[in-house]
């Protein structure tokens, strides 16, 4: 955390107790080390991503070594280590979607968004990710834009939706 001069007591309090929203969660889990993944899940929900400061805070709170917390967090696909983009675009690449043309969706989106699968655009506009099966296979191929599941997508329909996204 960068050092700075604090102008009022609010800021001072915020700095003294960083990640305060996490406190009740930590207490509910009795600061037990085996709740690490649960706590990381919650932390990501609160703060959008797992920053180094946040991970350090969790490690200190659970009395776990830093490297163990970082090693565990990076093992799991759903944890993010940089701020999320303004829009998220996720292609389901499960088997049913694959045999129904998920690869074409990915190719079209990669081209239109000018990023490769798994990347976040440097301007923070959008990230393009993949999920291995949402279990909604009858709707294949499936695209999830900002949390909304869209069924039976084609390259054209996917691009149309992406074009509509607010900058």
């Amino acid at each position, binding site marked *: 955390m960068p050092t700075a001069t604090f102008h009022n007591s609010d800021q001072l309090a915020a700095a003294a107790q960083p990640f305060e929203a996490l406190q009740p969660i930590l207490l509910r889990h009795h600061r037990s080390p085996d709740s690490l993944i649960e706590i990381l899940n919650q932390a990501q929900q609160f703060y959008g991503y797992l920053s*180094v400061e946040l*991970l*350090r805070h969790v*490690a200190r709170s659970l009395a776990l*070594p*830093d*490297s*163990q*917390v*970082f*090693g565990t967090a*990076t*093992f799991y696909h759903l944890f993010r280590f940089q701020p999320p983009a303004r829009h998220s675009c996720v292609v389901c690449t499960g088997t049913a979607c694959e045999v129904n043309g998920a690869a074409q969706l990915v190719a079209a989106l990669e081209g239109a968004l000018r990023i490769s699968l798994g990347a976040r655009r440097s301007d923070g506009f959008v990230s393009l990710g993949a999920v291995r099966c949402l279990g909604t296979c009858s709707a294949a191929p499936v695209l999830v834009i900002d949390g909304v599941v869209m069924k039976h997508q084609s390259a054209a329909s996917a691009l149309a939706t992406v074009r509509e996204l607010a900058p």
Partner: protein
Amino acid sequence: MSVCTLTIDGHAVAMAAGANVLQAAREAGIRIPTLCDLEGLSPVAACRLCLVEIAGSDKLQPACMTAVAEGLEVHTATPRLRDYRRTVVEMLFTEGNHVCAVCVANGHCELQDRAVEVGMDHSRLPYRHPQRSVDLSHHCFGLDHNRCILCTRCVRVCDEVEGAHVWDVGWRGEHCRIIAGLDQPWGAVDACTDCGKCVMVCPTGALFHKGDTAEEKHDDSSRLVDLVRARQARQGSP
């Protein structure tokens, strides 16, 4: 203490119950190649070099984690096992960037020794040439990820023997990488006690003393067991 009698490659071996097949083989003077295993550290059965065949089972078992049992019939060097071991070593060579000629561990490298042992004169698999980094931020030691085979000896020694847990494995699959602290430069991690045990147990030139140059790394990982035993003796444990 009860004793089991088993056969390894046709040799009868008597071994205390609770021991594993790898220890029994060593006792009988039968060599089974290993890399992740190190006496004094908990076994992980990750390198798969010590896999053996057990009569009556289709499944290959890691000698380092298979308990001896009465009447066990173990085969350690069938043609299939020899071929698989060579492939494992080829996989290790091709997934990293191992250039023996300029390596600090050349001539004192367990990976190199295993390659000779399994008869790997060339790799049948293509080299992957990954982009990997070198961390020279620690004032005494260096970490060259190009030479790391992810045996996790450093992770285990730092956690189990030194109790500092500076190291862990980050990410997963082909992206696995040994990390220090919160994936910080090694030198920036307060938890490190500069003890150098990780360097001592590293089987390759991945962890090394700064200043050592090609062929100058002379750490002997087998020294660890003496240290662990001495400590146990002082604490009065078995």
